[in-house]
């Protein structure tokens, strides 16, 4: 009878596995970051063509312009009146959805233009707050038009065709007419 072979269980030594895993873990902790990409989208106005005839008398009724100016003291002026940033959103909503009721405010949402001028020296935080208030005004109006809550409107996905269609429907009823002006261009108004 042959002597029975001793079964040798050659296992990989796994005592250092924890150390290896720790090293990998620490590498990933150091070299990666949490994707926290949230913020405000904005589209800049088109570049003015120099060949275009410059003096185009646009007949914009004064009531249809909601001029917002922020100066270097971080003061906000809307429709030539000083306002607090907290009140800006409500004022913008009243302006856009006026539909001709108040004679100082817009006569139609499709004509209601908001212009924004930010002076040199303004803090970025103030600008973001003003931008936030004005975007918030539009978001509120669009959300109301679609009959949904603001949170739901903000959560609409750009990759979902239905959601994009809904957004464009709201934008058609209440076009987004927010224009950022260069500080020195504002003198024309």
């Amino acid at each position, binding site marked *: 009878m042959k002597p029975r072979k001793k079964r040798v269980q050659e296992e990989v030594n796994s005592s250092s596995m924890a150390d290896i895993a720790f090293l990998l873990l620490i590498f990933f902790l150091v*070299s990666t970051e949490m994707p926290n990409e*949230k913020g405000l989208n904005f589209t800049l106005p088109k*570049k003015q063509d120099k060949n275009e005839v410059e003096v185009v008398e646009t007949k914009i009724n004064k009531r249809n312009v909601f001029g917002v100016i922020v100066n270097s003291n971080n003061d906000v002026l809307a429709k030539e009146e000083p306002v607090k940033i907290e009140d800006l959103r409500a004022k913008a909503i009243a302006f856009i959805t006026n539909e001709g009721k108040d004679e100082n405010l817009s006569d139609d949402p499709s004509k209601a233009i908001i212009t924004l001028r930010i002076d040199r020296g303004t803090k970025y935080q103030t600008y973001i707050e003003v931008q936030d208030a004005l975007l918030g005004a539009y978001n509120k109006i669009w959300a109301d038009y679609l009959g949904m809550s603001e949170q739901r409107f*903000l959560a609409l996905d750009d990759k979902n065709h239905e959601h994009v269609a809904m957004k464009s429907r709201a934008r058609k009823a209440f076009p987004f007419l927010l224009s950022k002006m260069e500080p020195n261009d504002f003198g024309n108004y």
Partner: protein
Amino acid sequence: MGKFRTKKKGGEGIPTSALPDIIFILLFFFMVVTKMKKQEKMVDTHIPEATQVVKKNEALQTIELYIGVPKDKGAFGDQPVIQANDRFITPNGIRQFMAEERGKLPIDKQSPSNIQVAIIADDEVDMGKINDIEKILKDIGFRKIFYKAAKNHQASL
């Protein structure tokens, strides 16, 4: 004579045989939910807060510009600067930078309508600087801007 039974020594303590598994689970978690840092931040950016924040549009290509005070104030001064891909540039350098970055993208995604510029700026930065940057971006046709901001939970919606 009665003997006192000495307590057996605790010996091993916590069993560590499951430790590698636990660490591996942690590792996989981090591998899945995080992504590689694109560049090392050389400026301090405490991003502003806003209520209307939305997720960044991932369908568009993103080019990032950091604006803030340099971390190494001794070497680079205490005035806000623009950081683009591990170097500091002047507002006019944005033209060249954007052209270079655009060249790195796939050919079918090089049109400015497919590209958004993410402005990651400190909330104390002067808007004059941002205005300058935006003017140049407008001039070269990149009109889609994404201002990175944190969700403000305190302000009521």
